[in-house]
């Protein structure tokens, strides 16, 4: 039978799914990584963010992402190939954002599941 019957428990105060489209191309040279920043108003340091890149660029992977400053998403892209690769402008990401309750200095107060 479909439909949820439970609420999740924990310290998560907010949970969002957002979309973002890049406004400029991002070039990653051969066998290196680079960090690009994107402006998404509302993000706060301490938010847990994850990305789905909705189109594939051969050889490029998003290997880490974090909120580096208020309203700023930083994403590390890695190029594992032997030639320079470019993520085109307009590439769309689906972004999951989870925000803990009771965040102090960008970190949730809780350090374990209780």
């Amino acid at each position, binding site marked *: 039978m479909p439909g*949820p019957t439970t609420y999740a428990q924990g310290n998560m105060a907010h*949970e969002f799914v957002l979309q973002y489209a890049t406004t400029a191309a991002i070039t990653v040279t051969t*066998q290196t990584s680079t960090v690009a920043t994107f402006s998404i108003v509302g993000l706060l340091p301490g938010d847990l963010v994850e990305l789905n890149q909705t189109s594939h660029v*051969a050889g490029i992977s*998003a290997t880490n992402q974090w909120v580096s*400053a208020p309203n700023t998403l930083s994403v590390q892209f890695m190029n*594992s190939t032997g030639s320079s690769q470019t993520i085109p402008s307009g590439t769309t990401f689906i972004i999951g954002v989870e925000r803990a309750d009771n965040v102090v200095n960008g970190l949730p107060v*809780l350090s374990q599941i209780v």
Partner: protein
Amino acid sequence: MAYPVVTNVGGSNPGPAFDTPDFSAAPVGNVQKVGVFSLTLSPVAVAAASAVEQSFAATGIGLLTTDFVQVQCAAPNGCAVTNARVSAADTLTLQFVNPTASSITPTASTIYTVNVLRPLANWAAPASGNQLDW
């Protein structure tokens, strides 16, 4: 950088400030459904020094292209899963990175745990301002 003083998304309610056990919370936001599922997958070989996608159709989860997905699995033989997306209805597409100098085939019949967040169908991003306002 000083952490901004924010009480909640709207900035108006300090909330319960959880720091003790045995609480329950229903987070607010634009998510309609959340689920954790498992799939048993057998990816094909990943070429040396490459990052390539492989798609797995008919997962049975009922995925939509607007879903946000996260995937976790045991490290597949030295390569990494670096992106997941829903490329078509009920089709999970994973990106595998092999930074080594030789081809790697991820372990067959490995269980991949899939976390799915589905936004509300009628949610639209604000044209400007706080994208996480609710």
